[in-house]
């Protein structure tokens, strides 16, 4: 009676209902993989679910990494992050040709922040997989950036792949350029910035380069954002 065997197994099921674990563990794992390129063997094995021959997978990964490196090098050569800005009056972000583009990685971000010393800066941290980030990036629109010509606006894309980030930027026009930076390097680049509670997060940096306020979550309106800019940066 082999059909009874299935029934007997069903009755003996040792784990019936299982609540899902917190999703944070998944984001941390993704962060591990994306940020440091650290990939435990398990992740690697999991990636073979691609049903592609491993060689193909390795070549595809290599090609992606190479393409990313070339793109970053090319953008760095374009010179935007290197061009020193007069400290008191950064170009309005909306008029930057790099608005809504990924213009570099962590070194370019650090350089840009150094060149902005003396200007207040608003940094929006986002990722392509984060739904509320889209709404938040809309809040920082061209009107806001025109309203505060003395404030520099820039974005940091984190825990993300370049391909997905580009696709996201193509869908969601942003009024400022973004830098792709791993979360741990971002927190290292901005002393005083603790671990971020989530995405999106808006970081306010004063003229002295200090983090004066961190606002987790998306802004419901441009007015709320403008209020925070006025309160914390007194531009």
């Amino acid at each position: 009676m082999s059909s009874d065997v299935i029934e007997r197994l069903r009755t003996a099921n040792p784990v019936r209902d299982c609540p899902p674990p917190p999703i944070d563990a998944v984001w941390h794992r993704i962060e591990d993989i994306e940020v440091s390129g650290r990939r435990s063997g398990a992740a690697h094995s999991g990636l073979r679910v691609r049903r592609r021959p491993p060689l193909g997978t390795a070549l595809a990964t290599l090609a992606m990494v190479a393409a990313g490196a070339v793109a970053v090098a090319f953008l760095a050569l374009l010179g935007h992050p290197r061009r020193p800005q007069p400290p008191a009056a950064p170009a309005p972000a909306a008029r930057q040709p790099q608005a809504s583009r990924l213009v570099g990685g962590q070194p370019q971000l650090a350089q840009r922040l150094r060149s902005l010393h003396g200007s207040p800066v608003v940094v929006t941290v986002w990722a392509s997989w984060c739904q509320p980030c889209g709404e938040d990036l809309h809040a920082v629109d061209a009107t806001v950036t025109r309203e505060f010509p003395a404030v520099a606006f820039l974005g940091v894309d984190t825990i993300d792949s370049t391909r997905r980030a580009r696709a996201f930027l193509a869908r969601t026009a942003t009024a400022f350029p973004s830098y792709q930076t791993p979360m741990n390097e971002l927190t290292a680049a901005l002393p005083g910035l603790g671990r971020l509670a989530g995405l999106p997060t808006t970081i306010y940096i004063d003229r002295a380069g200090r983090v004066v306020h961190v606002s987790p979550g998306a802004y419901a309106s441009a007015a709320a954002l403008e209020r925070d800019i006025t309160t914390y940066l007194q531009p």
Partner: protein
Amino acid sequence: MRLEQLFAAHAGAVRAYARRRIDPVSADDTVSEVFAVAWRRLDDVPEAALPWLLGCARLVLAHQHRRRQRDAALAERLETAAGPPPPQGDPLLGWALSQLRDRDRELLLLIAWEGLEPAQAARALGCSQNAVAVRLHRARRRLAAVLRRAEDRMESHPGGFRAEEAS
């Protein structure tokens, strides 16, 4: 966001799958790993995602198993961790399952414990529906035979029997 929807819909099932096969801590690592893979491969995850996710979990567990065999220190540390719970209220069944080949056991459990249809199990195992139908038929027969032999032995040796005598 698609990954969050996937997680909300299936994380419990993936966690249960892993917990039926490994200790609870490793099971939760497996869940993170599976969804991290899904995040990287979102475009490849089909609309009916559960068989794909369970297939992925199977590979992640198989890899952990191989790594343990390679890494003696890790194996030793993990030996002390509790394993998965045995089948409930049926000690003979746990032993009988251990007598099956891996692929037979996995197929039976995908259907009996994970509640997959044979067509879904075929997707999780990456083989054709026909192959699964044949394998399922044989696996059921084999498990039934192992159980029958063991039960016959128990009747003739009420004081107990040694596992190897039954097979």
